[in-house]
């Protein structure tokens, strides 16, 4: 696994400041961890939820089309039932299942799309080995710079992060 340097902060402003400094210095392979959404940090890392929305919309439209097509194909072509001469292809009775199945697909698409974009589930990750990382889900903020950006070394990462006055600094081993 890629080694890295991880710094711990106790408030989101410090995290955002450190993130900005690292970005200005040219770091790209980095990630920040917080106990609640920090939109400013997400913006610095260039992450948005837009793709989740597109996945959900696509899944919803596909689900609705699938539901309508299934009803139409089965009712008109495969198994036509004559109920008092009513039309075989009828929009009003096909509509309830179409909308609700579309909604089902959109909601499932949102969750599954989010997990896929986040590369989750992934139960094991090197940052979990960082000291005190359990607090990342409670009240601490972490910034991790991973090795691998051209021309930048872990020594520089350590220097850069130490200047941000973190509560703690640790090196993630391989």
């Amino acid at each position, binding site marked *: 696994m890629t080694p890295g340097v991880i710094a711990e902060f106790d408030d989101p402003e410090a995290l955002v400041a450190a993130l900005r400094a690292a970005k200005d210095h040219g770091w790209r392979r980095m*990630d920040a961890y*917080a106990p609640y959404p920090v939109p400013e940090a997400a913006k610095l890392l260039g992450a*948005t939820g837009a793709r989740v929305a597109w996945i959900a919309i696509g899944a919803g439209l596909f689900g609705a089309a699938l539901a309508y097509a299934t009803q139409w194909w089965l009712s008109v072509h495969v198994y036509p039932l004559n109920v008092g001469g009513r039309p075989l292809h009828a929009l009003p*009775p096909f509509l309830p299942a179409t909308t609700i199945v579309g909604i089902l697909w959109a909601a499932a698409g949102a969750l599954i799309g989010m997990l896929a974009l986040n590369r989750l589930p992934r139960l094991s990750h090197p940052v979990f080995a960082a000291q005190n990382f359990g607090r990342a*889900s409670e009240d601490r903020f972490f910034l991790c710079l991973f090795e691998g950006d051209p021309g930048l070394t872990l020594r520089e990462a350590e220097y850069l992060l130490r200047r941000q006055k973190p509560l703690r600094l640790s090196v993630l081993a391989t």
Partner: protein
Amino acid sequence: MSGAEFTTRPVSDPPLREDFGWRFAGAVAGAGLLTLLLAYAVVALLIEGTALWGTNIPFVWGFDLINYVWWIGIANAASLFAVVLVLRRHGLRTAVNRFAEAAALAAVAAAAIYPILHLGRPWLFYWTFPYPATYQVWPNFRSTLVWDFWGIMSHVVVTGLFWYTGLIPDLATMRDRAVARSRMVQARIYGVAALGWRGSVRHWARHQAAYRLVAAMVLPMLVSAQTIVALEFATTLVPEWHQARLPLHVVATGIPSGLGVVLALAALLRGGLGLTRYIDDDDMRLLAKLTAAAALACGYLYAEALLVAVLEDATTRQAIAARAFGAYAGLYWGGALLVVVVPQLLWLKRAQIQARWAVPIGIGAAAGVWLDRFSLVAGGLLRDHLPNPAPLYVPTVPEWTLLAGTIGLFALLMLGFARFVPVVSMYETRHEESEADVP
């Protein structure tokens, strides 16, 4: 910064507690007993069939539909409430969202049992699903029964997704707290359920988008699911049911029942788990006022039903009059009293905050809507197309057992939820507190 003095540990600690005390054990035993009764009632129904029930022509639907519509109404209102709070980023969401979602999920689970059981041959319920059967018989998609299948299935799945999506980051907190207390078995279980959530801000951005999207999806789903139920009544030719106002009535009267249940749960949880700081007095006041306002809207609907009856044709007018003043008049007016009038007490400051007021009023609103559903399903059929009067519908012991059983199931699910999952959304609370700290 808030980190020093503000902590969500009072929320994350209860699920990790070794012992919940004898009261909790007693409640679980009671709810478990009722759930066993449910199993007994279901097995008896599978063996004997629907002859066990008091339903007969013209009262073809009894407790099965009454309870189904009632539970769906509770689920809908609880979800609707949670969704509106999430989408509007309202401060109250931190306090009540999680268990409003859980109550919705438990209510949907209780509701979903009935339409399957009332099929007559419940073990063949999958016939409503379009699958390639041996005889190549396909469902009739123009039938309301098939709408129901999709409506209920989507309702269960989407409500579950909404609850779980919001829960993922808090499950990660539970995992880390369990590790900190060296409770490795719990840590593993929470860890797997949290899917390895590590709080990356990139993940948060997508998670928030997904959560709000699922919430936005729940909104039309609620309206359409409950409308589908009401349309099943409205598409029949029974005069009292065959009205365009029925979907609105069913959707709108469902709201005080669900809000009442959420209010009662909020009062019980904050007292029982000592969470007065997380579900504070302002939260309770707002919730109580919402319930009272929803009840007032129902008052308008009741008045409208009776006023419009005057303008209707003679058959419909007679049917509405039979429902409001006939054999089931007590249910109709009892429902109106509990849904519309009693919740007005919630405008009083004392009733808003004290559990001994809020809990009975909230449960009472739910019970009132149950009476309303009874009056709709049974009383609506007092004037059908048959000339000779039939014996009235009276629920039998197996039907009461089934109702008691689903209430037990709901209670058991809610107790399990309070036992194993943080009842307040911790990350939303932290977020809210951190913003409140900024001058």
